[in-house]
């Protein structure tokens, strides 16, 4: 290291300049010390660069002033810009071929933050995902822009359980990939059927330059990937902070970074988001088109896609055009879903489009509705304050849930039918006994109700793991049991607002005080889910057959909630359980607050 040779007296305080700290991804740590989020050694020029912004600053100035190691200099165009603006380097930035080519390919014109909906078929995507689009100045459209994704490099790991463990504990490295935007659209909109929301950011030309330069810097690095903290969404916050330090976005996420929360943080910074655009998934588009059809069109559509009768009898030209376009999109969906082989897929695609091309200018359906912007949904954390009665005993209850959304929470901005409750903790105080107990800890509760119809046949499922206080009638004691439930079934939409479902589940339960310590069981459930926007209702009946008499039961439950404000609701819960020798009759009314 030639640090000593070239270091000049650094102007006092530059190492504490917020932009310098943000460019180095330096973050305050638990005990007040400072450390960079980036883990790759090549991101640091000073030996103690990861923990010492001052020595890193000196080493960086030395690198530029010495002006010899072009390969290394070319990794740090953003640091150069910053130091040049501070008057700390005099040398010119060398010609960096790869970086220049990168910029040329991007043709940057702006930056857009992208949010993609939850994807219930992939546990890592339950909370949605965020990525960045570098808008292009190329003629045409933003299809020619590029998407920047920060994700975990998991190549070669096919074991799901191992994935989860490594993902939570930082066992993977995260890094950046850049792809054409049409590839991103294809992946999210068309393959995974997830809506995309585009939040265009209002950056100055200098900030845009800085963004691309800094992206190049971090693009060379890798960072330990933590599913809840240093994840896809969090890293983007640090990058935006490096471009405009006054945003202080990373400060909002000291513990967990839920993708939607990062969108809300960005939206909350004054003047940062200039426009919001909705790009619905293929499935959303098909459903919306179908909704606009008249009965004749619907019949003709089904005749075409289900019976291969493409005559479309009795329809006017404009009616035909909409049916054919929708049918074509449905054929695309079927092919991705592997319901069609390539030959049949091509035949049907071609047939529909050929017919469509013979119809000239006609009025047609709106492509999509306005959508429900995710940033306008309720916040992710929830507190519940309730009073109730259990078998004649009055109780008060407090719940705290760090994340994220349950079926009876207001669905505005969320994927309807998708419930993810994470670490919901319930404390209860019983008046009679004057005792406060941990009633329940939901480690994870996932429920996906997705209506099946003639077009789409998704399965609905539930996965729950919790620790619950249960009553053992044999010794008349209460104690804790660990419960696991995994179930699958189907949902059917009676109307837009009312769905019914059936679900078959496997149960396993373990607890030291249970008879024989454990039991297994099978549950057969039927339920109804109503969502009228401002109020929601979920009611279910379930019969559980178990290996222990103790756990045989018939359960009835109902839960209703009424939205008061965006971040508050009034809720009612009722539960009636017929158990072996011990019934539970419980009612609670509560207030929910989201924050």
């Amino acid at each position, binding site marked *: 290291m030639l640090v000593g040779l070239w270091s000049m007296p650094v102007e006092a305080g530059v190492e504490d300049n917020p932009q310098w700290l943000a460019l180095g991804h330096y973050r305050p740590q638990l005990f007040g010390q400072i450390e960079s989020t980036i883990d790759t050694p090549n991101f640091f020029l000073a030996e103690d660069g990861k923990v010492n912004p001052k020595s890193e600053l000196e080493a960086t100035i030395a690198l530029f002033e010495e002006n010899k190691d072009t390969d290394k200099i070319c990794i740090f165009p953003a640091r150069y810009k910053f130091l040049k603006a501070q008057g700390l380097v005099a040398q010119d930035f060398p010609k960096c071929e790869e970086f220049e080519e990168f910029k040329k390919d991007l043709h940057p014109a702006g930056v857009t933050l992208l949010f993609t909906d939850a994807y219930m078929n992939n546990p890592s995507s339950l909370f949605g995902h965020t990525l960045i689009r570098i808008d292009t100045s190329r003629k045409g459209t933003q*299809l020619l822009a590029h998407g920047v994704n920060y994700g*975990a490099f*998991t190549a070669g790991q096919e074991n799901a359980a191992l994935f989860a463990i490594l*993902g939570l504990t930082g066992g993977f490295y995260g890094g950046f990939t850049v792809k*054409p935007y*049409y590839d991103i659209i294809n992946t999210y909109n068309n393959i*995974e059927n997830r809506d995309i929301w585009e939040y265009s950011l209002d950056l100055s030309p200098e900030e845009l330059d800085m963004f691309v330069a800094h992206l190049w810097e971090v693009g060379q690095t890798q960072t330990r990937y933590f599913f809840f903290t240093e994840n896809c969404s969090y890293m983007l916050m640090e990058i935006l902070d490096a471009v405009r330090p006054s945003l202080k976005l990373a400060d909002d996420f000291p513990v967990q970074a839920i993708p939607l929360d990062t969108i809300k943080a960005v939206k909350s910074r004054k003047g940062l988001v200039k426009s919001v655009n909705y790009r619905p998934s293929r499935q959303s588009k098909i459903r919306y088109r179908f909704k606009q059809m008249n009965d004749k069109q619907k019949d003709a559509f089904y005749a075409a896609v289900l019976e291969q009768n493409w005559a479309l009898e009795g329809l006017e030209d404009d009616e035909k055009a909409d049916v054919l*376009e929708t049918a074509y999109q449905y054929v695309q969906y079927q092919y991705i879903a592997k319901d069609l082989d390539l030959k049949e*897929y091509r*035949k049907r695609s071609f047939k529909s489009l050929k017919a469509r091309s013979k119809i000239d200018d006609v009025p047609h359906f709106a492509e999509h509705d306005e959508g429900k912007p995710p940033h306008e949904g309720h916040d992710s954390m929830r507190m519940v304050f309730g009073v109730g009665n259990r078998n004649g005993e009055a109780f008060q209850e407090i719940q705290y849930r760090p994340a994220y959304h349950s079926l009876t929470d207001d669905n505005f901005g969320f994927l309807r039918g998708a419930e993810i409750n994470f670490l919901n903790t319930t404390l209860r105080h019983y008046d009679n006994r004057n005792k406060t107990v941990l009633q329940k800890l939901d480690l994870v509760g996932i429920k996906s109700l997705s209506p099946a119809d003639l077009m789409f046949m998704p399965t609905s499922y539930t996965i729950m793991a919790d620790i619950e206080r249960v009553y053992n009638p044999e010794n008349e004691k209460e104690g804790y049991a660990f419960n696991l439930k995994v179930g699958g079934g189907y949902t059917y939409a009676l109307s837009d607002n009312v769905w019914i479902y059936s679900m078959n589940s496997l149960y396993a339960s373990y607890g030291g005080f249970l008879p024989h310590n454990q039991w297994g069981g099978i549950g057969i459930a039927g339920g109804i889910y109503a969502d009228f926007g401002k109020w929601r209702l979920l009611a279910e009946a379930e019969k559980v057959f178990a290996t222990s008499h103790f756990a045989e039961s018939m359960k009835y439950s109902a839960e209703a909630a009424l939205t008061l404000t965006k971040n508050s609701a009034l809720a009612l819960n009722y539960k009636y359980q017929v158990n072996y020798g011990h019934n539970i009759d419980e009612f609670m009314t509560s207030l929910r607050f989201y924050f």
Partner: protein
Amino acid sequence: MKKLYLASALAVVMAFSSNAMAVDSTGCGLGSMAWRGQSGVVPQILAVTTNGTFGNQTFGISSGTSGCDQNGRVTGGTQRMVLNFLENNMEQYALDASRGEGETLDTLAGIMEVDKNELATKVHDNFALIFPHDDVDAVEVTLNLFKVMNA
């Protein structure tokens, strides 16, 4: 520092590097895009569009190129850009062409530097020329598109 730099999707000079993805069994026609963009049928738990192509220390733009034009029938910068766009957007382009409007047509008009309404009208009116049969590939569609636009 050595970097493997895959040609950008839109680079004027396309370098079909030896690492460019091989043409898969679905060829280059309709449906070929279906499984690109995800690494397997079984969704990877944490693989948020991760890409095995990248080793450590490399960063650049990964293109969706499949290498359809193995016989070199497409020539010239613009034609190559159009081919590259079409082989990655065939499904949507076919739909837009059949109805004479849409984002892919606007994009092509930008690449080819022609009026977008003119392009939209021409591809709609000449759909059967551009898509003569159901297993037409991206190279043919590209050549046909130029024929129609230059007619």
